[in-house]
């Protein structure tokens, strides 16, 4: 039941409660209670909007930064990760297996702003061994949604 609710609202969090109940074949009260509970439990962490900022005039620069760090005794990667993700510019931060440790997704207004963050904030952290910055040139698909594509219904209007 929870999974059904989550699968649906993951793609459309704006659906109204009554409609969601009808679609999933549950009562409105049940859906409301489950949503409430899942928010409390931190399963539902927020309701966001997927925006293609390239279509808006405001300048934005996104970068993915691979960060190699020295894990700290007793704290592993968590405490260094925390020092990084607390910066509001950091949009996402993941611990990664493989050739580096943290993948940091960064959003800034300009190239200079992103570079400054990397060279002044990130690289200067004691435990950071190296960084490698990749600027995002174009977003094709985000959160399972293909951007730059509007799909028309090309089926015939009526078929048996």
């Amino acid at each position, binding site marked *: 039941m929870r999974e059904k609710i989550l699968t*649906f609202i993951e793609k459309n969090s704006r659906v109204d409660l009554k*409609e969601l109940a*009808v*679609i*999933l*074949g549950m009562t409105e009260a049940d859906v409301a209670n489950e949503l409430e509970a899942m928010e409390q439990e931190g399963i539902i962490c927020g309701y966001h909007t997927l925006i293609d900022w390239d279509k808006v005039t405001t300048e934005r620069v996104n970068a993915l930064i691979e960060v190699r760090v020295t894990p700290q005794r007793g704290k592993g990667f968590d405490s260094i990760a925390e020092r990084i993700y607390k910066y509001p510019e950091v949009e996402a931060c993941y611990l990664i297996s493989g050739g580096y440790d943290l993948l940091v997704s960064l959003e800034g207004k300009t190239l200079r702003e992103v570079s400054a963050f990397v060279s002044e904030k990130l690289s200067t952290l004691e435990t950071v061994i190296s960084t490698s910055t990749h600027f995002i040139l174009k977003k094709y698909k985000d959160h399972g949604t293909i951007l730059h594509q509007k799909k028309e*219904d090309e*089926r*015939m*209007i*009526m*078929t*048996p």
Partner: protein
Amino acid sequence: MRNPLSEKIVTIRPSGIRKFFDIASERKDVISLGVGEPDFDTPWHIRDEGIWSLEKGRTFYTSNSGLMELREEICRYTQRKADVSYDPKSEVIITVGGSEAIDIAMRAMLDPGDEVLIPQPSYVSYEPCTILADGKPVIIELKNENEFRLTAEELKEAITNRTKILVMPFPNNPTGAIMERADLEKIANICVEKDLFVLSDEIYSELTYGKQHVSIASMPGMRERTILINGFSKAFAMTGWRLGYACGPKDIIAQMTKIHQFAIMCAPTTSQYAAVEALKNGDKDVEMMRESYDERRRFLMHAFREMGLPCFEPYGAFYVFPCIKEFGMASEEFALKLLDDQNLAVVPGSAFGGSGEGFLRISYAYSLKNLKIAMERLSAFLTKLRGSAS
């Protein structure tokens, strides 16, 4: 000049949808709930396999019955889903859609005057295919009060000593009706007793909601007298690939293959390669689409209840079949007015046989967003009709 046309073909009525299609196509901003195919694109891994087969230059004919690899997959799938086993070498033929399978099955089995029982409302091709094969269509009118299932009594009443084939169109287009195990057992018993063959069109077998599809071929004594027809169009959203198949006793399949060999040669090769991938790795796609149709089905049933439009709860395919008899109009007239007044296109139930009169076929192979607008329009229309009646 002599009349160039055959009397037989000229007397067959064109599909009842055609006329309506022409009118609806000319209008702008129409919201249509008239389509009998999925709104999903074919899952990418299946398309990719088709593209890959083209890149590798697999552009030749396949054997008449189709790629062995695909026939083997079909047999595995049919065993797994319908609990019937077939020999891929001699008991399966790959066709150009389920529709070709219907046609060649009729032609392989009928002699002039043989009667074919066709429960209606149902898909538009059984009757003309029977006539083209020189058979005599005998219509069984299914009833709303039975949720458009075929009952043993209705079947018995229609059987004569010329009856050869019973068409079993379930899950049903246009009603969404299904036949459950208990319903089928009664039908199967009669078929065995009266020595009837069954043409079981199970193209919507993957699309049932909350109830499992049961194939009549899996019932005792039925495998040897059933042609099981299925295909990729509905389950895997592959309508344009034109790929279906028939499984059945090898004597019948052999004769069907003969017709197919001379008329078609083989089903499209690209589609066959894509279909192998669909059967091997497509279960999760089917599951996702089924889930999505079910959401829309519940949405429509709820909308009908709210506007007081009577409709039995359908458990299959992607259609609902509400009753509009209270408005005292023929379903074609109703559909035309609805189109005219609200720019909403639905298919009159009468397009699927006389017993569909007084009903509409509404397809939910549309996005919820689309369905929502459509239901607002339908509701506005009903309010208007009811207002003018009082």
